[in-house]
């Protein structure tokens, strides 16, 4: 019998607490596989956020640190600066990174902090029960935008990847999605590039991952993936936004 797939040892055997159909599980696997393929488990430290991925330390089979809400890039900086040989990544959602932690992520990029950030954009606060995020689309209904997000009242959604790509210290910035097999393959490639960027000491790297939240969007998993495709990707275009890693 030929083994065609097996779970990476960089994921523990703990059962994921994520809702059925949630994209976090996919992204966890991609990150873990990349760590495995790069052979960096023994020098990697994961920084997990406050949000749905708060229990990330149970799943990533690496030394892990739970950070305060939005502060993972600052805590990651502290870890990286005490030993530049460590591989440090943050895994953050859109409430954590784009709202309360906006200053920390901007300045981690600004310093050219040699860390890797995996940023899950699912256009909503998941863990707290479906409130509006800075990434919530115009017109999207959430528990704190019950009539749909009104741009006159609270602005239009923020495009983190494009914003961070303008910062000198960022070296690799990409946006990917996990709504189809092709996009998942592309996502893994980007995540690997973002880790490689750190290993090569090039600068700050971030991969924004468009993901779904069937529970708080009030959809089935299949519907949510279609909604992501039809509504999120047009507003949040996929692709590599910046890559200075190839420059000599």
């Amino acid at each position, binding site marked *: 019998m030929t083994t065609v797939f097996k779970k990476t*040892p960089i994921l523990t055997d703990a059962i994921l607490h994520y809702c059925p159909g949630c994209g976090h599980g996919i992204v966890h696997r991609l990150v873990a596989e990349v760590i495995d393929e790069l052979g960096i*488990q*023994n*020098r*990697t*430290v994961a*920084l997990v956020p406050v949000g749905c991925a*708060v*229990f990330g*330390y149970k799943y990533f*089979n*690496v*030394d*892990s*640190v*739970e*950070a*305060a809400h939005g*502060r993972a890039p*600052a*805590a*990651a*900086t*502290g*870890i*990286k*600066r*005490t*030993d530049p040989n*460590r*591989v440090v990544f943050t895994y953050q959602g859109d409430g954590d990174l784009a709202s309360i932690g906006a*200053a*920390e992520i*901007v*300045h981690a990029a*600004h*310093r050219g902090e040699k860390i890797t950030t995996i940023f899950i954009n699912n256009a909503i606060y998941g863990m707290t029960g479906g409130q509006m995020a800075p990434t919530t689309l115009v017109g999207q209904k959430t528990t704190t935008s019950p009539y749909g997000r009104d741009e006159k009242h609270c602005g239009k959604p923020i495009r983190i990847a494009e914003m961070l790509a303008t910062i000198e210290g960022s070296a690799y910035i990409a946006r990917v999605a996990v709504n189809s097999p092709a996009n998942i393959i592309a996502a893994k490639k980007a995540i690997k590039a973002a880790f490689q960027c750190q290993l090569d000491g090039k600068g700050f790297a971030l991969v924004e991952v468009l993901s779904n939240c069937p529970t708080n969007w009030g959809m089935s998993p299949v519907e949510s993936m279609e909604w992501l495709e039809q509504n999120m990707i047009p507003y949040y275009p996929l692709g590599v936004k910046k890559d200075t890693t190839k420059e000599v």
Partner: protein
Amino acid sequence: MAKKLMKGSEAVAEAAIQAGCHYFFGYPITPQNDIPEYMAARLPQVGGCFLQAESEVAAINMVYGAAAAGARVMTSSSSPGVSLKQEGMSYLAGAELPCVVVNMVRGGPGLGSIQPSQGDYFQATRGGGHGDYHPIVLAPSSVQEAVDLMHDAFDLADIYRTPAMILADGIIGQMMEPVEFHEHAKRELPAKEWAATGWDPKSGRPRAIVNSLYIEVDELQELNDRLQARYAVIREKEARAELYHTEGAELIICAYGTVARICKSAITLLEKKGYKVGLVRPITVWPFPEKQLREVMDQPSVKKAVTVEISAGQMVEDVRLTVNGTKPVEFFGKPGSYTPTAEEIAEYIMKSMEA
């Protein structure tokens, strides 16, 4: 080693480096900028890292990260900045991480002043952030003592896996005094096996998880029981006070930091006039030196205590809790940044003793 004339803030920074602290994360605020400035110049020379953070919030979280990786690390600030650090302090306490935070206290509330104050006593000794925790809080009253206490602060933080704070004031930070950097006795410190440094599954140690989240009631209870048990040991073993002319005194002044030094001058004035006044100067304000103060207050000669502070009366609550109604406890001082003179203190004491 020869004595050196040094500004308090710079002496504190040098002492930290000599205590093995090679990582500093901070943000500018008056009156403590000499600490980050000194660190920015010195740390690269010793192979360490100084980083100016984008905010106090980021600075304390960088400290959190470095501490999580097992490094000796510190930050410094002054009152408004220390308020911003309280979230991080609570996480450090909850994750059982050692670090040192220096607060060169200035007047408040709000933006307040840049002159010295003791208005942050409650914040420092009651925890300051959310949840049931205390940092160890050391309150120097001279530049030399600040230097010596830096070593203690790092060691105690490591031994008890807790943040420690140096609670000084603008005067300690800004004045120049002769200091001596002598060798400090090396304490036996626990190995930081819990540190997140990168894990090799073949290493034999368990995977490190630095965390303050315990979603199950029983698990959170375990953390809190562990913290409270540790705090009980700290209260028992680490409370420190200086007793000055307390034997046979009729009135006891209780004061800490710079103010305690002014009180000593007041006592000199009072003794010349025949008054018997002593001073209990807490060196640790958390743990508060209850035993030391109680023993002094239990002397039959002592009629009352007067607490002197640059505050509206904060430490006086600990003095009253300690004395527990057995003798009167008065308060002398003003909130804000007004530092009383020795004459003003002596005058108050004389009136109080004649009353």
